[in-house]
Structures are given as C-alpha cells and as structure tokens.
C-alpha cells in the first residue's frame, strides 16, 4: 500500500516548497496530498488516512492545534504522525503543540533537507 503525506498550509508557496522538497519520496511511490486550511485537512485525514501530516499552525477557519487535537482524539486517526510546522518558534507554542499531541515540532524557515530526512525516517524509506 502506498504511503501518503498530507501537506497543510494556507500559503500556496509553502505548499509548493513542501511538494518540491518531498519530490524524492514521490519517486518512491509516496502520494502527496495538500490542504489549504484546517477543516479541509481534517476532512482529508479522515477520508484518506495519511501516514504523515505536515501541519501549519496559523491558518484560517481552524488552526493547527485544533486539527492536531481532533486527530489525536479520534481513535481511528490517532496513530497519524503529525509534524507541526510553524513560524511560531517559541517554547509556549511548542509546548502547546506537544500538548495537542503533535509528534514533532519544526519551525519555519526550515531546511528542506531536514524535512526530507524526517519524512523518510517516519515513513521508513531510504533516500
């Protein structure tokens, strides 16, 4: 079964950057999904069951913490690996993110290599 990664960000450029960063994994059969807001992300998580979610925090409608909380509270989706990816880099936010159930917390701006390495590691793929 193919692995799936969901990229959630309201910024189109960030989505494109993420897609390009994870291109190499796509070559290995990983499917990349994108969502532009929290609600859409939650919808996709419930329907497509991605293995890994890169979740932006500050988004319209529903923010990343809320999405994360919802995902981790749902027994069906609670094993989803969630990496919070946010511009807010302070401890308070990090703590809040981890409390919401995120597995990892990465700050923007990020090094594409780090993101790629993390994703590969989570999905147990080799680069």
């Amino acid at each position, binding site marked *: 079964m193919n692995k799936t990664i969901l990229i959630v960000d309201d910024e189109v450029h960030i989505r494109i*950057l993420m897609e390009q960063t994870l291109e190499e994994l796509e070559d290995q059969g990983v499917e990349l999904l994108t969502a532009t807001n929290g609600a859409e992300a939650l919808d996709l998580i419930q329907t497509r069951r991605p293995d890994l979610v890169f979740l932006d925090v500050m988004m319209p409608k529903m923010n990343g913490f809320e999405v994360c909380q919802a995902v981790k509270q749902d027994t069906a989706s609670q094993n989803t690996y969630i990496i919070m990816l946010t*511009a807010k880099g302070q401890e308070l936010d990090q703590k809040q993110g981890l409390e919401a159930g995120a597995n990892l917390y990465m700050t923007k*701006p990020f090094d594409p*290599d780090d993101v790629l390495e993390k994703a590969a590691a989570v999905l147990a793929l080799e680069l």
Partner: protein
Amino acid sequence: MTTPPIYGIRNFLVRLKSWLKPLKVIHKIGLGYALVAGVAITGTVTGVAIAQRHQQRAYQGNEDAVEEILRIKRIENAITRFISHERKLIIWIDDPEEFLANYDLYRDSAEDFEHEWNALLSEYREDIAAGVEETDAELALLDDLIETYGDAVENNLTEIDRFVQELDFDTLQGERLIQARQAFIDLNRRASTTTLERFEIELSEFASFIEQDEIQEAQEVIETSGRLQLQIVILSVVLSLLAAGLLAYAISRTIVRPLKAVQETALNVVQDDNFHLRAAVVNSDEISSLAQSLNQLIEWVGEYTYALKTTQQDLENQAHELNAIIDNLGDGLLVIDARGTITRSNPVLEQMFRLEGMTLKGMAVDAVFDQQIIELVAQNQAYPQRSLRAEVNLLNQHTGQALVTDITADEPAIKSSQGTVVLIRDITDKKEVEQMKTDFLSTVSHELRTPLTSILGFAKLIQKKLPDTLADTGKADRTMRTVQRNLSIILSEGERLTLLINDVLDISKIEAGKINWALEPTSMTTVIESAISTMSVLARDHGLALTADIAPEMPLVMCDLNRLIQVVINLISNAIKFTDSGSVVCRVYRQQTHIITSVIDTGIGLSPRDIDKVFEKFTQVGEIMTDKPKGTGLGLSICKQIIEHHGGRIWAESKLGQGSTFSFSLPARLPQEPPKL
C-alpha cells in the same frame, strides 16, 4: 557759697550708694552689723565717760569744799589763839618778859588769821573770776562775814598795839598796874572779844554750811551724771535700734528685693513662656551673679526650646508632606505591622479594593483582604529579606502588580522585621498594551517567516538540485559556480535574518515579561553538559578543545534549564567564534552564596572600551568595516536578561590578545530555603 544741707545729704547718699553697690552681700551685712555695734558701743562708752567726768567733778568739788572748811577751821583756830593770847596779855601784864612773849604769839596768830583770811577771800575771788559756781546762800553768808567781821581782827590789833605802845613796864606798879589791867580788860571786852567770839561762831556755822552745801551738790552731780548716763545709753540703744532698722531695710533692699525680682523673672519666664525676659543685674554681688546665671539659663533654655520647636515643626511638616505624598501616590499602598495589623493605607488602594469610607487602620489584614494579599504578606513576614513581586486580581477584572517588601529599621541593632509594605500598581492597561505588542510581534514574526521560508527553502532546493539537473557541460560550469555562490549568500543572509527575528522576538518577550519561566532546582553540571554536547561538534570543527571544570559538591540553583543552557551555548558559541586556536573551558565554582559559571577562551580578547558595551543590544564588538559580523548582536543582551531574571549577574573580563572570560553568578539554593513560588 554754701550747699543747702538737703543737697549735702542727698549727695552723701548718692555717694554712699555708689560705694555700696559693688560690695558683696556678706560685706553689706557685715557693714550693717558693724554700724549697729558701733552705735551701741559708742553710745555706751560716751554715756559712761560723761558720767565719769561728772562724778570726778563732784569729787573735785568735795575736795575743794574740804580744803575750804579746813581753811575756815584754821581761821577759827587763829581767832581762838588770837583771843586767848589777848586774854593772856591781861594776865601777864605785870610780867613784861612773859607779856612780850605772849604779845609776839598774839601778833603771830593775827598774822596767821590775816594770811588765811586773805587766802580765803582771794580764792573766792579767783573762783568767781574763773566762773566757778558758788551757791547764792554761801556767797551771801561770806559777804555778810566780810562786812561784819572783815576788819574786826585788824581793829582789835590796832587798838591793842596802841595800848601796848603806851605801856611803860618800868613804871607799871601798884595802882598804875591795876588801872592798866582794868583798861586792858575794858578794851578787850569792848573792842574785840565778844565780836571775835561771834565771828568765830559764825565762821564755824559757815564751815558747816559749806560742808552741807558741797555734799548736797556732789550728790546732785552724781545723780545727774547717773541720769545722763542712763539717757545716753537709752539714746544709743534707740540709735542702734534705728540703725538695725535701717540695716534691715538695707538688707531687704540689697538682698530680698533683688532676690524677689530674680524669682519673679523666673516665674514669669515659666508662666508666659517668654524667653526674652531678663532679671535686672544692678551691681556685682552674689544676687547679681545669680541673676546673671539665671539670665544665661533663660537664654540657653530659650535657645533649646526654639531649636526643639523648630525641629518639631520640621518634623510635622515632613510628616504632612509624607502624608500628602502617600495620599497622592498613583499606586495603592498598604502597610502592615509584624502582627498583621494594618497601620496605613492610601486612597488609591481603597479604591482598588472598594474599601472607601472604611477605617482600615487597626484592622487585621486577614479580615479585610482576600487570600492572595494575605499570602503575600505571610510570605514576606516569613522571609523578610526577600521582596516579592506578584500579580494580583483587582475588582472589575483589573490586574495589579504587587511589590511586597519588609520594613527594615535603619539601626543594625534591630534585626527583626517591623512589618510589610505592599505597593500595588494597576497594570491592566499596561498588560493590554503588552498583549497587543506581543500579538503584533508574533504576527510580524509569522509574516516575516513565511516569505523567508519560501526564499530559503527554494534557494536550498535550487542549490541542491541544480547540479543534478544541469549536465556538466563545461560551458555552464562557470555560471553554475556563480549561481551556487549567490545561492550561498542568499541562504546565509536568510539564516541571519531568521536568527535576528528569533532574537528580537525572544528579547521582546523577556522584556515584556511574557516568558513562562520553568524554575526548578537544577544542577549546573546538567546545564554545562547539555551545552557542551550541543557545541562539541562546532568546537571540533574549529579545532578547539571544549572542556568542563566543575568543582565538587555544588549546590543546586533555581533556574529554567533550557534558558540557562541557551545562555551557556551562547557564551560557548561566542568563545568559539572569537578563538582561532587553543581551548574553551567551562568552569563552575562556588563563591559564598553564589555559583559562578565562567566560559574561558584563549581568543582575541576584548579591549577595555569594548568590555562595557558587549551586553548592549546590537553591539558587535570590533571594527565594522574590517570584521565580518558573525551574529545578530542580541545574544549577550538576551543572556544578560535571562541571568538577571534569575537574580544573578553577568560580566566579562578580558585583555586584547589574551582571551576572554565571560562569567555569570546565580544564587545558590541553600537547603533550608523553601521552594520559590
């Protein structure tokens, strides 16, 4: 020209006064007694002397009288002899020898009489001429005697002489003798005998009269002199009484009156509180000296009283000023004594807790305030040396910041706390502003990061994927290298921008108090080991030895572990950045109540001018034009903020070219201390 006596007396009194003035009281009293005694003694002596003189005069008079009587007796005797010899002449008329012998005796006695009589008369005349008083009766008697008998003897003698001349003893015989004898008898009888005999008797009476008179006179003189003596003594007693009265008056004048004046002055000073009054100083005796001392005392007391009043007034003014300051203070003030009783509050505080109109003074703090205030006060009183800062909830969702400090007396002798001062500032508005600022910063940070993420991300991807995509055609090789270098610059600058954003956000959050500090008892060993493990790769890359040197048995410190690691990493990072070769050592040791952590490098060092500036914001040490900046310029500033928040201090020691030592101190957590809130 003569001075009227009244002026003379007045003049004398004035001079006496001016002579008495400088005398001491004791001399004045002595003088008074001397005066009284002098009057008494003089009076008595005078009286006795006068009486003595009178008595002497009386004795003299007596003696004179006796002499006079003796003379009269001699006169009597002469007359007796005269009469006797005359009679014998009659007998011896027949014997011429005997007769003549007798006649000689007769003449002798006449001579004796003459002599004494004349002496008596001349004495009387002398006495009268000398003014010696004789009684009228005596004079009258004497005059009588002179008139009656003055010539009796002489007449007798004349007749007898004539008779004798006529005698012729040769023929006197017989009848002739009888006739002669008869004639002689007749003559005798007629001329003298009876007269002389009467004269004799009267002289005798005169003598006894004189005797009587003189005795009486002497007695009178003695009586008079006794009376005189008594009068003089009485007079002297009266005079000395008068002098004593004068003395008493003088004493009252010179002693009692000035004393009374001094006493009145003292009384008036006390009653009227008037320190301008002075006792009169009229002369130089003891009382004047007392008055002078009193004046000095009044002056001093006046000065002290004035100084005291001034000080009191100053204190009152200060107290009023202080009250005004406290009442108009913008912050709420609450003062509680060591027993938890409210001793002071101000209107702002009363408004904050809606306590207007209540008398807070004297009430227990527990009875008026809620738990948060009570706890702050209790904590302060338990650990007075530590001042507390805490946020408290006020009414209407207002927030106050309370600063709780203890009242420590200035005197080192009083060690215990005197109470607690709570100062509450309404920081609701400030908090709102801070919230807005934080939100703004957060947003700005986010808004900056998003494009930065794209820029850096894409640059990184290009850098990574370009060589793969473009075949090594040789022609494109140079272009390729240029693009790679440019991308490197974009990335490095972008990373710098990212760091800057992080640091700005960091420092603004610390300054706004927005950081949640996770303070826990922590070992510095943990902090140093974490920092070293993070930085060891970088150190190795620079060819530097990074080691720890931690003294044994270090007490723990209360700190936020991650923040402290951040500080140590920052210091190590700086040390590596400015050290070309050698080592970086992290040393931890104890200095009394503090733990000192030093990061010691062997790098380029700092000039004294730069040392002071390194902890300022955006300060990059060194020449801007030649040294490439290697940081944001906020790292040490953040370190300073973090260390100071922990109650510590950070400083640098260095010499150009001899390496630098950056150290910070943190209060050691001593076992007996309670966990900090």
